[in-house]
């Protein structure tokens, strides 16, 4: 009677006691079926031993590195937040200053707006017709730019210096000459 496969496997691995090993050995030498089973066990054993053992240490390192990369990405990842839900970090004094400045600007603008409307609608301050004013003041080339007048009188070389310049009213001059 042939031994069990497990007993044959133990025999192949040398795990049987001496008495059992001798019995099984005697049987296998005379039994082609058991020899075939042993050959199959040997083939399986050789096949398993032929495969390379995986490098668990390298796999561990790679796994660790991948984990570190994932953690790093998660830490530096900018979360997409909706604008209306975004939180702005601003200190209280700065916020108070911004609010105060906004209120001041708003107040001034509203006041100036209503003052402007008041002045334009007031009949006591008619609007200046700037076209007339500019026509009066600036369209005359002779007003400001050409404030120098040139007189070229005939080349009479008999002008006599009779004394200091005299500035006098015409009436007074006529009276003076009349008295003379």
């Amino acid at each position: 009677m042939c031994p069990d496969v497990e007993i044959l496997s133990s025999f192949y691995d040398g795990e049987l006691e001496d008495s059992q090993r001798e019995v099984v050995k005697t049987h296998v030498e005379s039994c082609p079926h058991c020899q075939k089973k042993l050959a199959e066990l040997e083939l399986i054993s050789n096949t398993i031993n032929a495969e390379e053992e995986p490098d668990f240490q390298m796999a561990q390192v790679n796994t660790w590195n991948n984990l570190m990369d994932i953690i790093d990405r998660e830490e530096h990842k900018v979360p997409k937040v909706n604008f209306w839900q975004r939180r702005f970090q601003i200190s209280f004094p700065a916020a108070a200053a911004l609010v105060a400045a906004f209120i001041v600007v708003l107040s001034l603008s509203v006041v100036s707006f209503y003052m402007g409307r008041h002045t334009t609608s007031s009949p006591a301050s008619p609007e200046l017709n700037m076209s007339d004013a500019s026509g009066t003041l600036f369209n005359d080339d002779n007003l400001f730019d050409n404030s120098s007048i040139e007189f070229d009188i005939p080349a009479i070389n008999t002008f006599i210096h009779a004394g200091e310049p005299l500035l006098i009213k015409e009436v007074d001059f006529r009276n003076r000459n009349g008295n003379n």
Partner: protein
Amino acid sequence: MRKLFFIFCFFVSPILISAQDSPAPAGENINVESSDSQMFNMAIDLKIQDGTTAQVVSDHKAQHKVVSGRPVTLNINGGNFKAAVRFTLYNRNADNLLLLAQSTIAFIKDGHRQMLSTVKSIPIKAGEKVLFFPMGVLNDGEKSGYNCMLEMEVSKYQQQPVSQE
């Protein structure tokens, strides 16, 4: 809350923009009437008069608009003299004016070139005629030369009607 703030700004911004475009207050407007009261017409008539015959041998006329406090300079180029006269009109009040004449005259006398600078002033009223003799007035015994006389009349500035074209 944030949405309310933006909606508030949306409605307030037109007010802010229109406030910037509002015209200047009435106090900053230019007072044209006040400007006109400081402007005058000055009619200048330069006459060269023969001292012997009292005949006017040369007559040059000019019209000038002057502003109170702003000088008008007259340059007279004669045969043997040159004169630069600066007239400044000051409006003291109503019709009372002050005419200031600063003159620098270069002339040749006794073969030497001489210069004379003077400042004269006279209170006048609008419409009065004023005479200015840059070389002085010839005396009776010096009638052989020529008198150089500036005749001036200051009147209030009248705005010319703007032609409709």
